[in-house]
């Protein structure tokens, strides 16, 4: 057995860095903060690579399966005799895979930020928050039990809140951060309820016990029924609700586009590559339970994923803010991953979807981070977010252009780039399980290619826009991460995920299914082609099309009015029809009753106090008459 206990430092280091930068950074080394943060993360990255190498290539397999290793565990809080919250490090294929992915992207984003955030006010604060985020995200993926995951889940949420609201003087950023936090918090409520129900039935939080396919948790779970579904199904649906919120699936997706108010590196790291896939990771983590005890919940996962991906892809075709296009694209791609999990089975080739989902998660992190960082470089150069104000940038930003093109081709699923492989596995998994979902995903693949190249052509080709300042290529700190990630995007498709990350830890054989692959490449090319015709040069076609599908376009452009719906619910219903009446009720009914009691007492005493007039003679008169009355009473009447 290899000793993995050093992995605790992967968690502790970023936390210590957060404390250091957060408490002392501002005063003592505001300029050095970036280097310290990046250096610290580089150490963590190295540690993660070592861990991954040791785990995948030197650790012992039992019956050909990778084992789940608890590298470190302490009891943080003893709740009941059986339930206790532990903090620790759990190593298994998906957590190690996530570890590599997160640290890689995070390191790139750190380096990129050194250039991008240079000279910003709050430079050290930015890196402190990034460290906090790294800490919480790593804690999330390394969690040994579901409650630890929930803890870090919340911490991730708050670091996201802090980073979205980084430009805290910008009202839109403040609104966006608030929205992100509250929407995800609402989803987390579902997660927490799910945990409560789950733990009540299984009496454990521990992942290894929970997800053991032969274990007691899975065996006993399905029994009790509530409203037609088993309790286990309910709890897993609730848990999935947390994932829906964090991964911005429909209907909790509304925070993600607004979250683009944060600095672009943050969007790349948190809202594209790492945090938003936490929901996928959560489902993957609990997968055996879904697969064995709650297949109905798994269907929910699949359909929510499929619908979200289609929904987001349609909206993405109409948006003009490049970061928002990317945000919807992220949502769409995560929909893919969810769907893949939803159609997957457990073990062997049935677990193709599971593997594909993880594979896509990994490749997506690379190319989506690349896209965002590229977008950041573009915005850095032209100081606008809107593609309508861009055009012809290929001349000014050659490196960005090339890397962006690579990323677009990757996401469009053009072989032999990584996106092709992972997306193909997903489509194959869907094809084998559910033809309807396959059809949806197939359409989304085309849409994806179209809107990505719409973006690409609008920015780099299209009309020659006149800029106030001649745009110039970003500094090396920004271009190097782009290049590294581009290389990653190209080659990560070659990683044999079927040997490394599978649902049961065992290797299974996959082959390229041409019956799926060829049409998917074709539809990708079709999408690119349409985009080429419409946006390569300035043309009338987009406007005409928009006019033709007037209502459809308008709805999609306005994101199907989801924001307005939410605003209606929060402002009108919660604020106007619940809170204010509650406040009124409290002031006037409850407090009014108390005040009424008081004022009745007071009125009565006002009446009574007339006796206490201060007139000596009145007192004497009362005294005398009283004495006489008493005398009469006792002498004559009492007897």
């Amino acid at each position, binding site marked *: 057995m290899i000793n993995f206990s050093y992995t605790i430092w992967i968690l502790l280091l970023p936390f210590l860095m957060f404390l250091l930068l957060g408490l002392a950074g501002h005063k003592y080394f505001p300029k050095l903060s970036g280097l310290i943060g990046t250096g610290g993360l580089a150490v963590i990255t190295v540690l993660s690579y070592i861990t991954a190498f040791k785990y995948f290539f030197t650790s012992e397999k039992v019956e050909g399966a990778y084992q789940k290793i608890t590298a470190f565990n302490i009891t943080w809080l003893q709740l009941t005799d059986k339930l206790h919250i532990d903090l620790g490090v759990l190593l298994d294929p998906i957590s190690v895979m996530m570890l590599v992915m997160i640290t890689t992207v995070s390191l790139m984003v750190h380096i990129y930020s050194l250039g991008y955030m240079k000279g910003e006010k709050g430079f050290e604060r930015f890196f402190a928050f990034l460290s906090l985020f790294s800490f919480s995200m790593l804690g999330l993926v390394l969690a040994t039990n579901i409650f630890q995951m929930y803890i870090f889940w919340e911490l991730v949420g708050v670091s996201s809140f802090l980073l979205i609201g980084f430009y805290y003087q910008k009202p839109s950023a403040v609104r966006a951060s608030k929205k992100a936090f509250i929407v995800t918090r609402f989803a987390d409520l579902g997660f927490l309820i799910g945990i409560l129900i789950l733990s009540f039935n299984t009496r454990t939080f521990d992942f290894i016990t929970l997800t053991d396919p032969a274990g007691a948790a899975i065996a006993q779970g399905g029994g009790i029924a509530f409203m037609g579904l088993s309790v286990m199904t309910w709890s897993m649906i609730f848990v999935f609700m947390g994932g829906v919120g964090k991964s911005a699936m429909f209907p909790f997706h509304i925070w993600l586009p607004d979250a683009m108010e944060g600095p672009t590196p943050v969007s790349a790291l948190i809202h594209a590559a790492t945090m938003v896939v936490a929901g996928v990771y959560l489902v993957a983590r609990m997968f055996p339970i879904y697969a064995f005890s709650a297949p109905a919940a798994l269907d929910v996962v699949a359909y929510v994923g499929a619908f979200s991906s289609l929904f987001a892809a349609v909206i993405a075709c109409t948006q003009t803010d490049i970061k928002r296009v990317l945000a919807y694209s992220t949502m769409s791609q995560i929909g893919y991953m969810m769907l893949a999990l939803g159609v997957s089975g457990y073990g062997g080739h049935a677990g193709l979807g599971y593997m594909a989902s993880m594979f896509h998660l990994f490749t997506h992190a690379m190319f989506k981070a690349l896209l965002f960082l590229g977008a950041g470089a573009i915005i850095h150069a032209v100081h606008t977010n809107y593609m309508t104000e861009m055009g012809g940038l290929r001349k000014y930003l050659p490196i960005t252009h090339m890397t962006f093109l690579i990323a677009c081709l990757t996401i469009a699923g053009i072989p032999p780039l990584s996106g092709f492989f992972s997306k193909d596995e997903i489509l194959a998994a869907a094809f084998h399980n559910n033809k309807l979902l396959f059809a949806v995903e197939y359409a989304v693949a085309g849409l994806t290619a179209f809107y990505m190249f719409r973006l690409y052509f609008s920015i780099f080709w299209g009309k020659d826009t006149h800029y106030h300042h001649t745009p110039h290529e970003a500094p090396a700190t920004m271009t190097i991460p782009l290049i590294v990630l581009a290389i990653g995007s190209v080659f990560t498709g070659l990683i044999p995920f079927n040997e490394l990350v599978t649902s049961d830890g065992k290797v299974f054989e996959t082959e390229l299914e041409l019956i799926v692959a060829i049409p998917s490449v074709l539809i990708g090319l079709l999408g690119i082609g349409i985009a080429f015709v419409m946006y390569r040069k300035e043309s009338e076609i987009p406007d005409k099309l928009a006019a033709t599908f007037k209502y459809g376009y308008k709805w999609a452009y306005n994101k199907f009015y989801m924001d307005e719906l939410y605003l209606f619910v929060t402002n009108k219903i919660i604020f106007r029809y619940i809170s204010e009446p509650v406040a009124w009720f409290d002031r006037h009914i409850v407090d009014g009753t108390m005040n009424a009691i008081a004022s009745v007492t007071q009125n009565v005493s006002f009446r009574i*106090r007339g006796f*206490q*007039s*201060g*007139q*000596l*003679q009145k007192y*004497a*008169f009362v005294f*005398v008459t009283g004495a006489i009355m008493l005398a009469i009473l006792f002498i004559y009447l009492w007897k």
Partner: protein
Amino acid sequence: MNTGIPIQYFLILATIMFFTGVYGFLTRRNLITILMSVELILNSVNINFLAFNRYLYPNKLEGMFFSLFVIAVAAAEVAVAIAIIINIYRRFTTINVEDVNEMKF
């Protein structure tokens, strides 16, 4: 010396005097006249004490001494009361009892 006068006469006399004093106490507005009414009341009580002592317990002296002390206390009381009245007068420029009603509520 008191033969032929029943004790009841003294008592009735004292009663009338007492209630006259009470009446004065209740109706007069001037603090000094109220004080005088109090003197009437005290005197009527003294008469009672002495009458009881003389008629019912002639061989004892309690009644007489009690009256004696009452007179002494009355003297003290008047002295203090008048001091207070003068003080009130200084403060309120009136000794009308209806105007001196700060001690209400």
